């Protein structure tokens, strides 16, 4: 972890009318780091993630991203075309429900190849080769490349969504409950896969989850949110094994141990 942070977040606040979405969130994300954001439903996790990934403009605060070419830039000061380009190339966004992040009416291969075509790839053979390569990396059989996403299982859809995001070789990936709608054994495989990909590609990840087990497996560092504010943050093991804030203690204590 040298040089500068990939993402610098300072005082980000988002309100919905008089209600608070998230309040005064500040953190740095370093290259190769996985940051987990945990908390119960309605604690502002998703609002924060949407602000970070430029899907929602915060009411206050700055989000500075270290771009490849021009160094650190405030993402909301960038022009809209550049911001959209950034989101399509340098970032990935993995939604909880794959339907939101995939085009359900085109084949798996086209889903994976779309980002390549969006940045100007015009050679069918090369697009297809990359799509095949990425399907292999997320453990989808290569002969499913021309199948429609609706013929895929939930776990496969989520892996397809991940491949679609990673094909453009992003540096930063936002994940909103990536394992939320999967059963436990499929969750475990997906987490395994994600861990491998993150390590291999040196990705930085912000992962939102309410599942502390997911946080423990994936995240290096944790932020615990409650009612829009960050109540505790630190290394994952430290937060989960020695929670300081009463809310974190409650959260950790409410996990069932079979």
């Amino acid at each position: 972890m040298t040089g500068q942070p990939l993402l610098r977040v300072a005082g980000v606040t988002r309100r919905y009318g008089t209600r608070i979405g998230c309040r005064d969130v500040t953190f740095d994300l370093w290259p190769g780091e996985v940051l987990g954001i945990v908390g119960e439903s309605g604690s502002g996790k998703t609002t924060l993630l949407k602000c970070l990934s430029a899907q929602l403009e915060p009411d206050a605060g700055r989000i500075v991203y270290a771009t490849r070419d021009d160094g650190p830039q405030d993402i909301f000061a960038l022009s809209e075309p550049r911001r959209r380009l950034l989101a399509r190339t340098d970032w990935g966004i993995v939604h909880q429900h794959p339907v939101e992040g995939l085009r359900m009416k085109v084949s798996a291969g086209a889903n994976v190849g779309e980002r390549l075509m969006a940045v100007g790839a015009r050679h069918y053979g090369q697009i297809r080769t990359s799509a095949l390569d990425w399907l292999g990396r997320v453990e989808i059989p290569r002969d499913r490349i021309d199948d429609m996403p609706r013929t895929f299982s939930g776990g496969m859809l989520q892996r397809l969504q991940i491949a679609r995001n990673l094909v453009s070789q992003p540096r930063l990936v936002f994940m909103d409950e990536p394992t939320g709608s999967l059963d436990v054994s499929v969750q475990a495989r997906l987490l395994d896969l994600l861990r491998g990909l993150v390590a291999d590609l040196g990705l930085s990840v912000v992962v939102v989850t309410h599942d502390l087990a997911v946080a423990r497996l994936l995240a290096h560092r944790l932020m615990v949110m409650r009612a829009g504010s960050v109540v505790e943050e630190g290394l994952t093991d430290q937060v989960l094994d020695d929670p300081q804030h009463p809310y974190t203690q409650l959260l950790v204590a409410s996990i069932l141990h079979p």
Partner: protein
Amino acid sequence: MDGYNFAYLDEQTKRMIRRAILKAVAIPGYQVPFASREMPLPYGWGTGGIQVTAAIIGTADVLKVIDQGADDTTNAVSIRRFFARTTGVATTERTAEATIVQTRHRIPERALGADQIIVFQVPIPEPLRWLEPRETETRKMHALAEYGAMHVKLYEDVARHGRIATAYDYPVMVSGRYLMRPSPIPKFDNPKMDRSPALQLFGAGREKRIYAVPPWTAVVSLDFEDHPFEVQSWDQCCALCGAEDSFLDEVIVDDRGGRIYVCSDSDHCGERRAAGHVGPQPDALGQPVEAAPR
């Protein structure tokens, strides 16, 4: 015709449409919204094209109307008669004589000249609609020239059929900037749009959009480097006139499955026959050469 203004529409409406046309010409390929009027025929029958024609037609114009290349099909006949009655202008079936050609589904085989205008009837103007149902979003995609997703459709074609199977309404880039639907013309006609000396106007009545390709504007069909754009070809010639370079329709000639291929552009075919070209089955449609439609 008593009780109606020249060319059916009132002058204020024509003025509004002309403004939209001017804007469309100024921004090649850009879809200009306009206040489309109710016309005395249903949507889908060419209400957009008719309004554009009504806005530009003058007393000295000569109008030709074609539908699938032919002058004698229902849609072409009814629109031609509509303008004959509401304007009294001369109509023709000959491409060479026309100053305005209103068309559905074809561009005439004879190259258009600088003194001609072609008006296309457009059912769905938005090329990105198939993948993005939101108008706000497609407008933004046009504004930012985010057209990569359009290749997803071509990718699907190649993945499924081994080649780009889109055969009509084939997407084009106009002047290197705007992605445009050329209306449901066969892709055979796409090359004719490129740097055409004629002004090309497009009217979509139900969707309330007008767009244009000004003369001499570059129109490029989308493709892949390893699957380049190509037009349809046939392994036979026109049965009536023997043309090998025109767009052919398959016509069933009897109830025993007999079929022939004939030029879809009836004027082109007739002209060739009048000039002495004879195909392998000149009488297949029961029309002797000398009685060919002129």
